[in-house]
């Protein structure tokens, strides 16, 4: 069963028929496994990793460290929600160490991101400080190496 998810994690377009061929599990069973996981949100979503730059669209990403004040009863969660509801926030994590929230924030320009930090994020009650790191280059994402150099280097025929 784990195999089904491993295959989908690598390529979410793989059809139940293809998965059945690859694993030897009957198609109907593969479909059941997938449907159940979708219902339980064990499969959260099917998405596409894009290189927007190649598509001619500018995109600026920043990793932002946020220190926040935990609140009575709700701890970090309430303030985290205030933060992650912003559409600019692509990912949000509560982390251990020198700060509390790690965010990936997206904008069209550096100004967009800077404005978001200065006008939306920093002024929130409970946010004690932020550190913004602009991403300069994406080497690897979700297990995929994005820079070139991954082409087949083998001789085309060997015995």
């Amino acid at each position: 069963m784990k195999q089904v998810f491993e295959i989908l994690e690598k390529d979410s377009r793989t059809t139940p028929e293809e998965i059945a061929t690859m694993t030897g599990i009957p198609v109907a069973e593969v479909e059941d496994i997938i449907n159940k996981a979708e219902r339980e949100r064990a499969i959260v979503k099917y998405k596409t990793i894009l290189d927007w730059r190649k598509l001619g669209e500018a995109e600026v990403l920043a990793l932002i460290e946020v220190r926040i004040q935990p609140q009575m009863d709700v701890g970090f969660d309430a303030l985290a929600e205030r933060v992650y509801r912003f559409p600019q926030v692509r990912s949000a994590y509560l982390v251990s160490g020198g700060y509390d929230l790690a965010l990936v924030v997206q904008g069209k320009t550096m100004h967009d991101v800077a404005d978001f930090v200065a006008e939306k994020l920093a002024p929130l009650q409970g946010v004690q400080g932020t550190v913004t790191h602009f991403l300069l280059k994406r080497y690897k994402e979700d297990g995929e190496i994005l820079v070139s150099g991954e082409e087949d280097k083998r001789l085309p025929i060997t015995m």
Partner: protein
Amino acid sequence: MLDKVPPSGIRKFFDLIASMDDVISLGVGEPDFATPWHITETAIRSLEQGLTMYTSNCGMLELRQEVAGHLKATYGVEYDPETEVLITNGVSEGVDLAMRAVIDPGDEILIPDPSYVAYPACVLFAGGQPVWVPTSCDSEFRLRPEDVGVRITERTKGLLMGYPSNPTGAVMELSDLAKIADVAERHDLVVISDEIYSLMVYGTEPNCFASLPGMRDRTIVLGGFSKAYAMTGWRIGYAAGDSRFIGAMTKIHQYTALCAPIMGQVAALEALRAGAEEAGKMLEEYDRRRRVVIKGFNEIGLNCFEPRGAFYAFPSIVSTGLTSEQFAERLLLEEKVAVVPGTAFGPSGEGHVRVCYATSISNIEEALKRITLFVKRCRSKKRARD
């Protein structure tokens, strides 16, 4: 004697492919994965530490101990790492050394047909005479004891076989091997067993010829790292056997190779100690591709028995009316898919092509589409002719 060894049967294809783009190659005999990073990293560390010298002729003792430990743990066969294990420059060197150690001029060596191309060549280089033992798809390309038996003469010295097989993907189960062991016992044969793909089996357990009763002392086991750990470029293999064999092989090796490269030996040691998990992941991926390939060829009507080892399938192309060589050449020219004609591996390979599935599923699927078109064209031409 050199004249008796034909140039490699794939040179022509190699040159053709070099002049084309957008070729999907199912003709590569090595993993598409890079060596697992922990192995590479260990070797880099060793280079940084200045481990750039010769090792003992037989290879680093630690590695020989680890090899002996692996053979004992996996198959229950025991070897003395001091005198019964030799580290070689790949299994390639192991095959050559074994032949030179075993063969007296004119000795005959039995070889399953089809087999890995180096076997008959090494027998000839060592002054021996290779004798093909045909295998066929009716018996899923397993070696049958009766076919071995009838080819034994007073000059027969030994049997050189490799299962799981390159090019067929066939495996020999322990029960199949036991029948071969009987023949070996009866005719006092030396058995050279190339087990480079032994860990790469699907739905069955790895085995070792030397683990059969009475076989250890007449068998030279050749094992390697190239395939299961994706380490073709590191050039490390090993030979294990009785000290009379390993001693003779070491004597040749010490003068002709001195030792295997130390960085490769360090990497191989790491592979044996900690490589099982990554090797297992690669094997799972090969198994998925294997199923796609078998189903794909059978749907096209190019009958393919279920290969249960290595990363090859050996479908029959007889229904196209072409020879193996014509099929491979025209498929390449017309649809830009490279496969290797079965005849490159021996006369019994006629009617088949070797398909290597060490490539991504998307490549395999695209190749199957192109082969479908090609085969349709061949069949309609064949009907028009008939």
